[in-house]
């Protein structure tokens, strides 16, 4: 039962990841980034409840603050001042969908049939952990794919977030009961968030010459 909840949520986060990467409308991408983050928040909360690790609630709170409030706010500010259509990806839409499909199939088959190759411990070879791991590895790869094939700032931030979230999901799947897992999650979340915010701010500054919100409003298209 616990496994079903986690697998369902993980499937949801995987689907929203794919949609977010492929959407051509950058404002919709930002919305799906937010939705993706809500699902991540839900997954961390579910782990906290199911594995009786209350420290994980701290991580979900941090996730809420950084991924659901701060970063989306700045991304929305950025996205609404730029054309909503994405730069044409280096590869066509069809190729991208095909590549993502291959990624999904490869990782799930790999974990179903050859989990011993990628399992750090015994628990990782059994359900539901191996399905969770397959999803996590796929999300990580999806983030890297987005970074390699997309140029827009919104898509780049999405790629970074997917890679980070992929690692975090691996961590949760492998060691959900440890307080050190929470420590790793919170600190790496904050560190990555600071640098992502710096990345977005630098882009805004380069284009507009300021990050002052009031002045940004004056520049609204």
């Amino acid at each position: 039962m616990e496994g079903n909840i986690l697998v369902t949520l993980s499937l949801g986060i995987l689907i929203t990841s794919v949609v977010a990467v492929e959407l051509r409308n950058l404002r919709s991408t930002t919305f799906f980034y937010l939705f993706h983050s809500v699902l991540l928040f839900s997954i961390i909360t579910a782990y906290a409840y199911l594995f009786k690790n209350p420290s994980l609630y701290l991580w979900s709170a941090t996730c809420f603050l950084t991924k659901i409030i701060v970063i989306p706010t700045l991304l929305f500010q950025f996205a609404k001042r730029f054309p909503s259509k994405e730069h044409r990806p280096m590869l066509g839409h069809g190729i991208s969908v095909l590549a993502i499909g291959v990624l999904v199939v490869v990782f799930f088959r790999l974990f179903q049939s050859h989990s011993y190759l990628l399992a750090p411990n015994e628990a990782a070879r059994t359900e539901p952990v191996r399905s969770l791991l397959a999803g996590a590895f796929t999300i990580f790869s999806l983030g890297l794919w987005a970074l390699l094939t997309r140029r827009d700032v919104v898509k780049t931030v999405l790629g970074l977030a997917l890679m980070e979230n992929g690692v975090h999901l691996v961590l949760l799947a492998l060691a959900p009961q440890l307080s050190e897992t929470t420590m790793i999650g919170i600190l790496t979340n904050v560190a990555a968030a600071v640098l992502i915010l710096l990345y977005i701010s630098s882009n805004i500054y380069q284009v507009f010459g300021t990050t002052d919100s009031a002045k940004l409003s004056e520049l609204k298209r």
Partner: protein
Amino acid sequence: MSETVSSALPLVLVVLPIVGAVFTALLSLGKVRVPRHSLALAILVVELALAVRLAATVWSGHRVVAVGEAISVDGLSALMSLLVAFMVTLITIQSGRYMAKEQAKGAFSEGRLALYYSLVLLFTGTMMWTVTTNNMLMLFVAMEGSTLATALLVAFYRSRASLEAGYKYVLLVVVGMTFALFGMVLIFAAAVQFRPEGIHALRLTEIGMVAPRIPKNIALIAVAFMTAGFATKAGLVPFHAWLPDAHSEAPTPVSALLSGLIIKLGAYALSRTVTIFAPTYHAVIVFIAILSSASMLIGIFMALVQDDLKRMLAFSSVSQISYVFEGLGLGTYVGIYGGLFHVVNHTIVKALLFMSVGAVMYATGGVRRISRLGGLAKKMPITAFCFFVGALSLGGLPPFNGFVSKFTIFLAIGEERLYWAMAISIFTGLLTLACLVWAAYRVFWRKPQNVEGASEQSEFREVPFGMRFSIVVLALLCILIGVYPHILHPALDSATRAVLAIWARGVATP
């Protein structure tokens, strides 16, 4: 096993510059007119004194810990912290005149000048944290902290080009460090089976003990991911895309910090994590040898075609840090010794070269295109001499320090019978020598190319003492270490044994 002593000294080493950074920034906000340069320099001199004291304790046979075992200073930490403190102090000494002139030119406001020194102190604090922490997670967080400080310094001018260089740096390093984090998470999950108290599975000194028992596939995947991540931080090909832009768009003292110190963090992290697997898996050695060989060759080829002095030196750093990775990746005493020796030597030489370029730019009003420079030796004999010492040293000629560490690395590679890698290393060394000597000739001794240049020449003069001091000290150090390399032996031996000690106990405890 060395005796362990508990002390607050390492913690002060980390906290002092960070507190100084906050204090300096607050002064700036409060519009208080205090000489920031002097304040920053005072803090850094204290920092250097503390680092010397700490190193002396370590080299007398102790391991110093603080905050439980969260901070652990062994031979390697002592070497790195001393290097950081020394180099930041020298670079800050040169910064004073250089940045004051930039401000006078209108490149930035007085308020931002205060921010500059605040960021240098923040940089110092995060560097110290990185090289003293005994926790794999904190290693990651501290490295990210240094990325933050460095990115703000790279983008300091806030020109379009520097902002682009800054966020490109952030983007690529965050991607790289996420790979490294993935590797760390896999190791943590595997190690926790043998160290039920989770905190121990994050301790670098504990992980080494269980490294041979981590499943092979997981170990190799983790090694590949961490190597890719730390190679990005260090700027190895193909992860180097941030490096030439960051170096060329940053203020020149920051370029010296980048090549001198920041790329060494990648090497440091590698020596703490990846090297613990080298004795168990020969594949690790070959993987890093291939990566390093390709990187050093491509780096120097790209350096040869640059007309911009700073970009040339930046690509040279891509090449030189590859020597370090090659040495460390071997996982042997001689390899690690040579790699760490080159960490020290390259730090000294590259800071010397970049600060010499800073002096040239100061004297010429910012010119750094080799094709627009020439005949500066008559006007700037001291800078010319120091740059030439750096060029010969980096090129690996005796009696300079670069020769000793490179030769050690050649021997170490030969010991592992990787003769192809040895050949590439030697060939790269020759190209490095050619590249830098040719650049030195064109900048300092060749006649100026045009009449316009000739008339400009009469305005050039040697830079003030405050700027010359740092490069003269470094040039003398190149010669001193080259002639008497054994003066560094206690430090390097202690550092090498510290790296080996992490996994030696693992082998002893199957």
